[in-house]
């Protein structure tokens, strides 16, 4: 029983990072209808930039969770302006292809700028195991829960109560009509890219602090993609929950089954969920009067 509890809690901790990545995917998809296949690479770039700042100015780990989102917002806005805005009005497929190209470019840029050797993230959250109800957790795992909860609350408040959140929801449903209502869809896309990069930067920093900073860090974002499919590609909060589910499923599969199966557990979850709910567990379905 203790083993099961350990697997679930540590799965939730890993899932919190997946959830943050999932929210990042969903934020862009919800506002623009585009899947950003460079999500992991964007997070990786921000982690490298954050690490560079921390190497110059040694600061405690928690400051990385403030610096990274700021760098993330700037990165998101720059990428939107340089890469995405020129594509406004083009079919989503063309923009998705651009994100794939962007992913390749960021990977190459990172190797050129920082080399291919992995290195340790300059700040650590601490190695002292904290016991919660008999289950041991590292501080970074607790921090991951806390950050995810904060991100969910912020996303909920933004989408539910703010004008910009409403504009994002409207743009996601029908961009042309949103335009006719006076919504500047280019601004909506820019905010979505900035928010997405900020959230993925948190996931990146949390992940890198438990592993390393290397040019294959982007794979964490790719691995989290099932989270947003399971939760619902157009549901920011659903994608966060999808991440938690994915983390637990992976851990239980690895704990009770073969470790190799753990790697494909997320994709098996995608197939299972999509067969029952094609829009994901929390994805919106079209409302139509029959």
């Amino acid at each position, binding site marked *: 029983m203790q083993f099961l509890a350990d697997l679930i809690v540590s799965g939730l901790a890993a899932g919190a990072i997946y959830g943050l990545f999932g929210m990042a995917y969903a934020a862009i998809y919800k506002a623009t209808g585009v899947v950003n296949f460079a999500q992991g690479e964007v997070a990786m770039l921000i982690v490298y930039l954050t690490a560079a700042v921390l190497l110059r100015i040694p600061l405690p780990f928690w400051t990385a969770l403030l610096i990274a989102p700021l760098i993330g917002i700037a990165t998101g806005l720059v990428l939107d302006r340089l890469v995405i805005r020129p594509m406004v009005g083009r079919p989503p497929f063309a923009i998705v292809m651009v994100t794939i190209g962007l992913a390749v470019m960021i990977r190459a840029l990172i190797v050129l700028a920082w080399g291919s050797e992995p290195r340790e993230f300059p700040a650590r959250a601490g190695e002292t195991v904290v016991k919660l109800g008999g289950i041991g957790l590292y501080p970074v795992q607790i921090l991951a829960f806390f950050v995810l909860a904060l991100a969910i609350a912020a996303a909920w408040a933004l989408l539910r109560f703010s004008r910009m959140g409403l504009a994002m929801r409207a743009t996601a449903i029908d961009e042309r009509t949103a335009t006719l209502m006076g919504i500047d869809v280019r601004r909506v896309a820019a905010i979505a890219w900035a928010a997405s990069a900020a959230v993925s930067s948190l996931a990146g920093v949390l992940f890198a602090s438990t592993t390393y900073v290397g040019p294959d860090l982007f794979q964490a974002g790719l691995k989290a993609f099932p989270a947003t499919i399971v939760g619902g590609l157009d549901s920011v909060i659903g994608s966060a929950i999808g991440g938690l589910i994915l983390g637990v499923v992976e851990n239980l599969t690895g704990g009770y089954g073969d470790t190799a199966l753990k790697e494909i557990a997320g994709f098996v979850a995608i197939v299972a969920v999509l067969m029952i709910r094609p829009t994901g567990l929390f994805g*919106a379905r079209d409302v139509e009067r029959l």
Partner: protein
Amino acid sequence: MLRIESLRITYGNAVEAVRDLSVHVPRGGIVALLGANGAGKSTVLKAICGVLTAEGGRIAGGDITFEGTSLRAIRADDAVRRGIVQVPEGRRLFARLTVAENLAIGGFLRGTAERAATLARIHDLFPPLLDKLDRPAGLLSGGEQQMVALGRALMAGPRLLMLDEPSLGLAPVITDAIFATLARLRDELGLTILLIEQNASRALALADHATVMEGGRVAASGPAATLAADPMIRAHYLGLSDSGSRRNVREAAPATARLRWPA
């Protein structure tokens, strides 16, 4: 207020959707743009609203001015800021959002006080919406959806309200109610309206002035009452014989190729 002068619109430099169109919409007036499918009416609306370029079209000649300012290079959100607001064809509500949220999006560019005042006005104009504010707009009836679409446009504080086929898919009694509301908006608020309709009889009954388009060109233009009395218009757009009796479908063949006024 709105002047369209010798307008020419093309798509991809090949298809000429609108040719030599001139229309004047005076302040506080209702002007109807009539014509069959493909006549170019909606293309004109896209040009006025600033969404033509995004759909591959361009103004190849002439100009559109709103209160003396050219709209040739206007962006859609700037058009709304200037008070040019559209009720799109098919209503195009945000189906998953509630009625209240749809109305709120209409007022996206306006201040809180202005939105509250307009909302009260909309509740007065459309009482059936009052107890449906929390329902997803996609679950409303066609008539209720048209009320929301009109209310959403009013929330933007229009100075020029443009409606694209407001009677489309609606029962006659609902269409009557919508057109009565438009007349009320003109009479009580002095709203300027550009109405695009295939239902020519209703449009001519409401409008002060009308322009009939055919194949992208002006086929007829004049005071609505004059056009309504014109035998050719009666035969080809209203489906009525000279004596006023309704013609059957075969007799009232499409106007295309038979009806030609000099441009």
